[in-house]
């Protein structure tokens, strides 16, 4: 037991140390990519809390990502808020949106839940376009360099941006590791494995699932708000269906219900698209083939397959 705990912490702190060191080794191009991957991985980690651990397959997480992105962006652009306050508001917006959607959507389950969350997200996307005078619609909002200063650090600077993305990623990873190893994490998994059984152990399925969805929304909101601040752009495309599907792909590729899976999936998918689009314009075909191979040979994702083949301690 303690031996496993040591392995778990060694692995996760090792990954964080490697990411911290990578900043000094990698060329600038990959630095920018990795910063983006780390923020997207936070989004995927949030998705994984709902999908991988609690068994809630949402097709509307772009709504929570978008809530964080626009919550932050509109407060900066329209109300002149500082980066810190706007970031906090963006995170809260993600959680609040998940709470509102969850209260309604969690009355359904399975395919109905997928459809209801998808509908909510589409409604959110169309709302952004409808209020173009405030949201700037498809054109989006560019966040001024002057507004992208957090605690005295200029987030538009490449080095600072990497560290900011890393700090968010590290915090999200460690909180999630603690969460899934906590008693509440065990109850989330119990909901995924057998809801009726869990109910007869005294757990209220609705409350447990709602709590997991709100946590998931907070992660998505944090990722959205950070993405806007770090890369200086808030656009409606980030609230579109594509951004609901992306974290699902990341999580499936890396391994649903694993702590590091979302990061691994995000990194692989990002570079797969990057490499494929250098070779062919049909880069989505390459992504499709990769997913087919995955479903055929490792349906539990890369880390899920490793966990089945000996690494049982992998959280």
């Amino acid at each position: 037991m303690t031996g496993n705990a040591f392995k778990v912490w060694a692995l996760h702190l090792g990954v964080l140390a490697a990411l911290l060191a990578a900043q000094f080794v990698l060329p600038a191009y990959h630095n920018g990519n990795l910063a983006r991957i780390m923020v997207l991985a936070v989004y995927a980690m949030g998705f994984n809390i709902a999908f991988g651990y609690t068994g809630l397959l949402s097709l509307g997480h772009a709504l929570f990502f978008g809530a964080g992105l626009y919550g932050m962006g509109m407060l900066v652009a329209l109300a002149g808020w500082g980066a810190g306050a706007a970031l906090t508001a963006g995170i809260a917006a993600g959680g609040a949106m998940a709470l509102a959607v969850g209260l309604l959507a969690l009355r359904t389950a399975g395919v109905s839940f997928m459809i209801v969350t998808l509908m909510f997200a589409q409604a959110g996307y169309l709302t952004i376009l409808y209020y173009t005078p405030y949201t700037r619609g498809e054109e989006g909002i560019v966040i001024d360099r002057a507004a992208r200063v957090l605690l005295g650090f200029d987030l538009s600077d490449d080095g600072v941006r990497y560290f900011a993305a890393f700090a968010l990623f590290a915090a999200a990873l460690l909180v999630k590791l603690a969460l899934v190893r906590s008693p509440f994490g065990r109850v989330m998994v119990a909901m995924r494995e057998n809801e009726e059984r869990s109910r007869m152990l005294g757990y209220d399925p609705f409350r447990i699932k709602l709590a997991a969805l709100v946590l998931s929304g907070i992660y998505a909101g944090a990722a959205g708000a950070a993405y806007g601040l770090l890369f200086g752009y808030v656009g409606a495309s980030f609230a579109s269906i594509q951004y609901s599907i992306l974290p699902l792909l990341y999580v499936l590729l890396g391994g649903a219900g694993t702590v590091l899976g979302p990061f691994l999936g995000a990194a692989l998918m990002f570079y797969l698209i990057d490499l494929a689009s250098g070779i062919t314009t049909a880069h989505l075909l390459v992504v499709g083939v990769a997913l087919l191979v995955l479903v055929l040979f490792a349906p539990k994702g890369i880390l899920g397959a490793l966990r089945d083949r000996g690494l049982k301690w992998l959280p």
Partner: protein
Amino acid sequence: MAAVTLLEARALTRHFGGLRAVDGVDFDLAQGEIHALIGPNGAGKTTFVSLLCGRVPVQSGSIRFAGQDITRLPAHARVRAGIAYTFQITAIYARLSVLDNIALAVQSRGASHLAAESMAALDRVGLASRADMLAGELSYGHQRLLEVAMGLALRPRLLILDEPTQGLANSEIDAFKDLVRGVVPDMTVLLIEHNMDVVMDLAQRITVLNFGQVLATGTPDEIRANPAVQSAYLGG
């Protein structure tokens, strides 16, 4: 018997379409007894206990548990109030470890030393050495035992066992009987059981259900001697 009544059901009714699964049942459980519920297949036994534990909503009638009206209480809240139900079809978490299974029950009642109390609960049924195995890899008998252990770990006031000895070997049944005898009078046990030897051996009182209604209630001897029960059920 001047025993304290733990649970009382009055005129409890549940129909499924034209089927009168449970039809106006009055039922009392004395605190600390082992009470068996028997009856032919389709008599409404599982539906009746499902009404008691809240898995099936009550159509009409009322249930009082420990002085409190629980007729409209949701199932999870009844578990918290002290009614534990073990499933007829084993419903453990097959893909989680044995320890995680039991820990989910232990932490539900709010334990201060989760790991130690979980191991103690496994030890009680002799599964401590298998704590790290996946529950789905246990033998069938051990899975049933884990199911019962999860019910016990909730430390309920009332433990409802739905056909607990089904599929068990004779040696396992003996161990199971000892286990159940050991939990009373701290807990009250309501047992649905087809194995008449187990029923006659364990139960202090027996209620016979037939077509959703109570045919008779009494001690094992009274039930054995009851002509109505004999014709309806024991094939006398």
